[in-house]
């Protein structure tokens, strides 16, 4: 067990790098910060891979399944015997898998950014924020208790805020960073309350105790309910709200598309592969609790996930900003993962959904990061985010073209690429539990293939546009990560996830479900074919179709006006009818009171300043008088 103590360094290295580059970054050339950050992350990445190999294939598997190992833990704050806050590292299948995901993507993004961010103002700052983010994210995934998770959860939010607002001179970036922070923070309030309820019921923060099978700590919850809903359902739903905020589930999805204002490598790292899956990870972490103690909450999770995946896929079809298309696609895929957890059972074959969700999380991280980095490469070449500024790029950027195509095929679920396998498992899990959601996911599979290839054909095929300069392939620092991720996207599907990452840690045998897989592939191919017809050569058909859909198209293009609805509710209703009266009260009553206290303090202070006269005899007098006063007060207390 002690063999894993080195995992501490996986965390410490990014933290140290953050401190070094953050404090000393101004002193040396920007590139030095980049190199330090990349090397540091390289070490973390290597250590994570070693951890994963020794954990999964090194005999951690007993009769009870994979052991949960805590190689390092210290008591941080000990308030009472039961209220103890610890910091530590927990290794179990999902956290080890997440270690690999986070460090892999982060390492690739570090390398990629050496080329992408070259010459940018604040290059050193960028790398120090990246390290901060990586540290926070790693701290989140290895947290052995929900409190530590919450701390790192917030840290992740802060680093995301910093990175979205990286171009802080751009008003839209500032607005987007604020939006992301406020929306997720709002959801985090739910998370916090959920933690409080949960720990009140159980008296512990530790995941080990919470997820122990057949534990009795929830006994006291049985009698508790609020508004006719049981306490555990409340707790789990509130915790899920926190997860929904980070994972941008409907109705908290509004921040993610705007978050694309950040530099593209950031979008790949944070808003596609790692941070946004934190919500899915949270639900997976709490899975046994949710499944056994709060089945109603699990139902909610399934439907929210299903709805989000459909909703986002529809919007993605109409977007022109390539990063936004990818953002909505991310939303849609996250919906898949949530849904899969929502329909999962526990143990063996029943727990297929859990395993599928984690599987998809893994493969999605690879291919979505690849898509974003590819998009970054395109943007780097043509200096625009919009599809109508692009066309015919396959001739100029062969590596980007091939890797992007691989990613598109993967997300569309074409066998034998990794996306096919993970998506197939999800569909099977949905089919076993809920036919309606299963049908929705079939539709989404088709839509996904369609909008991805709409993007692909418009960018790489069609006519050349008027470019500022001839587009060129990106430098090696950018294309190597693309190739690496492409390889990962192709082969990740062959990982035996059903043996490694399962709900009961035991593993089970699964096989292809041709009855479900074949139609899903056909639907995907149909979507690709539609995109081929409509977008391979430029034609007026898409525009005409858009016109014929009329108001529905406009609504979709404007993301069903959700931003506007939120703005209306906050600006018109909350600001006017709640905030303004409170502000008045604050300004006139509270401030007045405070100013009064301040003035009085000042006045007294002015009055008594004569006491400090500088004369020793005066001091001596005060000394004796003080002693006398003490004596008198003692007499008083004696009586």
């Amino acid at each position, binding site marked *: 067990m002690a063999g894993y103590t080195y995992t501490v360094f996986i965390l410490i290295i990014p933290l140290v790098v953050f401190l070094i580059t953050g404090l000393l970054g101004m002193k040396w050339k920007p590139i030095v910060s980049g190199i330090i950050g990349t090397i540091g992350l390289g070490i973390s990445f290597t250590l994570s891979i070693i951890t994963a190999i020794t954990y999964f294939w090194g005999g951690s598997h007993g009769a009870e399944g994979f052991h949960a190992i805590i190689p390092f833990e*210290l*008591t*941080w*704050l*000990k308030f009472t015997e039961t209220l103890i806050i610890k910091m530590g590292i927990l290794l179990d299948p999902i956290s080890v898998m997440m270690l690999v995901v986070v460090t892999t993507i982060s390492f690739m993004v570090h390398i990629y950014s050496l080329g992408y961010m070259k010459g940018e103002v604040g290059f050193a700052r960028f790398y120090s924020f990246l390290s901060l983010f990586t540290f926070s994210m790693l701290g989140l995934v290895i947290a052995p208790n929900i409190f530590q998770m919450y701390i790192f959860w917030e840290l992740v939010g802060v680093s995301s805020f910093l990175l979205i607002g990286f171009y802080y001179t751009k008003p839209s970036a500032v607005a987007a960073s604020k939006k992301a922070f406020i929306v997720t923070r709002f959801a985090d309030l739910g998370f916090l309350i959920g933690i409080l309820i949960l720990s009140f019921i159980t008296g512990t923060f530790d995941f080990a105790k919470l997820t122990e099978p057949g534990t009795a700590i929830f006994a006291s919850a049985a009698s508790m309910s609020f508004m006719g809903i049981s306490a555990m359902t409340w707790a789990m739903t509130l915790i899920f709200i926190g997860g929904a905020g980070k994972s941008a589930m409907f109705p908290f999805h509004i921040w993610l598309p705007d978050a694309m204002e950040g530099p593209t490598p950031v979008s790949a790292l944070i808003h596609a592969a790692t941070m946004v899956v934190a919500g899915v990870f949270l639900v997976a972490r709490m899975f046994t609790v949710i499944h056994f103690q709060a089945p109603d909450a699990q139902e909610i999770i399934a439907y929210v996930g299903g709805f989000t995946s459909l909703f986002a896929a529809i919007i993605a079809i109409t977007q022109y900003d390539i990063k936004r298309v990818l953002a909505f696609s991310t939303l849609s895929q996250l919906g898949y993962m949530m849904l899969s957890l929502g329909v999962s059972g526990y143990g063996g074959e029943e727990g297929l959904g859990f395993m599928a969700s984690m599987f998809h999380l893994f493969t999605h991280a690879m291919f979505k990061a690849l898509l974003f980095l590819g998009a970054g490469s395109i943007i780097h070449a043509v200096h625009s985010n919009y599809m109508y500024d692009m066309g015919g790029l396959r001739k100029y950027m062969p590596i980007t073209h091939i890797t992007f195509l691989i990613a598109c095929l993967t997300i569309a679920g074409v066998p034998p690429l990794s996306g096919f396998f993970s998506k197939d498992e999800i569909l099977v899990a949905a089919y076993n539990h809920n036919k309606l959601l299963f049908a929705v996911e079939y539709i989404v599979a088709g839509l996904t293939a369609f909008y991805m290839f709409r993007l692909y054909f418009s960018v790489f095929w069609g006519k050349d546009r008027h470019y500022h300069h001839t587009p060129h392939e990106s430098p090696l620092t950018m294309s190597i990560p693309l190739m690496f991720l492409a390889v990962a996207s192709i082969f990740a599907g062959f990982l035996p996830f059903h043996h490694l990452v399962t709900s009961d840690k035991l593993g089970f045998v699964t096989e292809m479900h041709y009855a479900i897989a074949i139609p899903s592939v056909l639907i995907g191919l149909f979507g690709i074919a539609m995109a081929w017809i409509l977008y391979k050569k430029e034609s007026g058909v898409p525009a005409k179709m858009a016109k014929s859909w009329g108001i529905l198209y406009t609504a979709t293009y404007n993301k069903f006006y959700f931003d506007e609805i939120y703005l209306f509710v906050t600006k018109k209703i909350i600001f006017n009818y709640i905030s303004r009266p409170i502000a008045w009260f604050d300004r006139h009553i509270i401030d007045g009171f405070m100013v009064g206290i*301040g003035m009085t*303090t*000042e006045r*007294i*202070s*002015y009055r*008594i*300043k004569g*006491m*400090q006269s*500088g004369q*020793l005899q*005066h*001091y*001596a007098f*005060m*000394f004796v*008088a*003080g*002693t006398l*006063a*003490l*004596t008198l*007060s*003692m007499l008083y*207390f*004696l009586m």
Partner: protein
Amino acid sequence: MDLGQFILMRHELLLTIAALAILVAEIFTSEKNKSGIITFALGLFALVTVVGFIPGETGNLFGGSFQSSQLTTFMKNILNLAVLIVFLQAEGWLRKPENADKISEYFILTLATLIGMNFMVSAGDFLIFYIGLETATIPIAGLAAFDKMKSKSAEAGIKLILSSALSSGILLFGLSMLYGATGTIYFADMAGLISKDAMTLLGFIFFVSGMGFKISLVPFHFWTADVYEGAPINVTSYLSVVSKGAAAFIFTIILFTVFKNIVELWQPMIYTLAVFTMTLANLFALRQNNIKRFLAFSSIAQAGFILLGIIGFGELGLTSVVYFVLVYVFTNLGAFGVVAAVHNASGVETISGYNGLYKTNPMLSLLMTLSLFSLAGIPPVAGFFGKFFLFTAAASKGYYLLVLIAVLNATISLYYYLLVIKAMFIAKNEEPVAWFRSTLAMRISLIMCVAGVFIIGFASGIFEYIRSISQLFLN
């Protein structure tokens, strides 16, 4: 008697040897090389500090007159560490030409007082306690008047010696009454004999007054501001941290052991003193422009907070006091270090002189900010935890109103700490203090302070350790 038992006095003996070694070194150095003593003394004292941390035996000497426990050893180590930082900060100042012939005096006088404090902390009877106290006080007057050609410094020296003569007189009077009432001077024997008769109580009150002078509690604090302002900065920092810390330690120990029978009588007294000390010191601190006077009042206010730990009589109270003093050492010396560095480089001593300091000396300004935040008790730095545990100790005994008053005072204190920060970061200045490079020793000391402020705040093991040795001490 087995001479090997003297190992219990290892801190005192080491310090005595160090002081004597410096004296001998003074004799053997030529006029030209006097500044070599600084390096020698620093190295020697660093060694003494490190050796002090080697765990050793505990027990009593001289029939209980001298007590050594893990807790007192830890307290002495805190004091040593603080003095080491003070010495490092004094290095640049001592190298100035006008101090060339007084270098060894500074070290010997300081070490002499430190020896006194060590004896005081380890005292097992009132005689050793009193001798330690006087040994710790009289040389400080010499230190306060170190710049004897400056009238302010001379004034500080004379004020200190006269006021402390008065307070020592009253303290000694009180001790003699206690002896008269109980017939013993040993802490252990006296504890059982303390009753509520008039002579004992009057003796006790005189004792509290005398200690109130040392810790500078209102209304026994008046000397503080004048002496702090007049004395050289490195003496002031010593007074405000080491001297005060040692007095707070022994005051807590005596109240918790000797006077534990009349705890319900001294708690209201400490309550009143705490309220007055915090509030008045804060009111005075608001109006200061001299940074040393400002820190003087701030340190009086901090003493008021310490009383909250004392009022939380018991293991938690003792722990919180020791922990707070430990935090306070690094926090306050961080602030004093910056003040000393700025003073050495430019002679500036006023808060308005700090206007625009951030533009020219960003690192020092950030350090100062960190220290002031810690003094104000803002998380996550150590100062927050120090105050938090003091408040917890008081609250655990049900003194909620007192905690509320303390919190309000902490808020007021934040205001004046922010005034300094505002001066450094926001206020405009045509001629801010020019950029300068601190000496190596100063930088080392400041790094120690920053490390302390962070490490003590985050490493909960330290608090747990203090708690365990406090538990041992009280049982």
